[in-house]
């Protein structure tokens, strides 16, 4: 840039009214040109003085790494803050929720199937060994209960006297 052009822009420079690119070009010229710098010193001595050391050190390489790491940690922390004892599942994605529901249905289905299968098996054994459906002692699950236990007392209550004597 020519000195005349620079000098026309000195007032805008000291008033902070130049664009970033224009300001950089002007500073570059002022650092090289003693005449323009003298005019600047008349207009604003502080602006002329700071031109002696206008550059700042480069941004440290570690700054971005550090800020982004802290930002990620903050995001995790804030996720913990919004955890709710009842609505916690809303934090999960749709895929995660669907998978969880599917797994629960599979476990429930398998449990129901196995329960039905065992009950049918035990019942058929009971029916074969004794004609009375009231013979609860015939169920393998209740057969080994110890005497004087709570289960034993319950069975004594619900089983007819005759069957108790037979036992």
């Amino acid at each position: 840039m020519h000195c005349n052009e620079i000098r026309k822009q000195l007032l805008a420079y000291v008033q902070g009214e130049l664009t970033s690119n224009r300001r950089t070009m002007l500073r570059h010229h002022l650092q090289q040109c003693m005449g323009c710098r003298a005019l600047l010193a008349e207009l604003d001595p502080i602006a002329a003085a700071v031109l002696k050391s206008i550059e700042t050190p480069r941004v440290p390489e570690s700054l971005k790494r550090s800020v982004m790491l802290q930002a990620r940690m903050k995001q995790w922390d804030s996720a913990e803050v919004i955890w709710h004892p009842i609505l916690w599942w809303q934090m999960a994605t749709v895929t995660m929720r669907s998978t969880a529901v599917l797994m629960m249905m599979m476990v429930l289905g398998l449990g129901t199937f196995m329960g039905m299968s065992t009950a049918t098996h035990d019942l058929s054994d009971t029916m074969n060994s004794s004609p009375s459906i009231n013979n609860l002692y015939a169920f393998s699950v209740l057969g080994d209960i110890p005497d004087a236990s709570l289960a034993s007392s319950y069975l004594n209550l619900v089983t007819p006297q005759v069957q108790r004597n037979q036992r």
Partner: protein
Amino acid sequence: MPEEAVSDEELMQAVAQGNLDAFEQLFLRYQSAAWSVAYRFTGDAAEAEDLVSDSFLRILDAAERYKPTASFRTYFYRILTRRCIDFTRKKRPIATDNLPPVLASGYSQSEAVVHQEHNQHIQNALEQLSEKHRLVVVLRYFEGFSNIAIAEMFQSSPKSIERMLARARKHLKPLLQSLLEED
């Protein structure tokens, strides 16, 4: 081109949705400016790094509350300047005796030594100012902001900024006189 096509305000709205890539874009756009202000204000590279980190993390925290009524640039500098002032209230006095070298390209070794002395001289002079005056001087003389822009950052009037600058100039002029006399 595609990255620059997205405005700062749009990026900030994405940050509010938890988008860290948008936050990274904003960081890359403003890191140099933030670093420059913080470094000139504190005169210490490590403290400037803390200040810049803290300011960006404040922006991340406030993203959900951000409303694009003013430009993001003004909003960003407002947070940064507030952090600078809070920082000096909490921290020990600035030690300007051991400034890191300003490694500008194109300097010979002897020029770099002279440049470092000037840097130290200017930083010592800035240290004599109150924190607000120092910040106004940094924003005007190093970052090239106008009174109106600085007033928006400080949520003050341009006249008030001009008064602060006038006082700062009066204080700085004798301290920087020797630099001017070198010419």
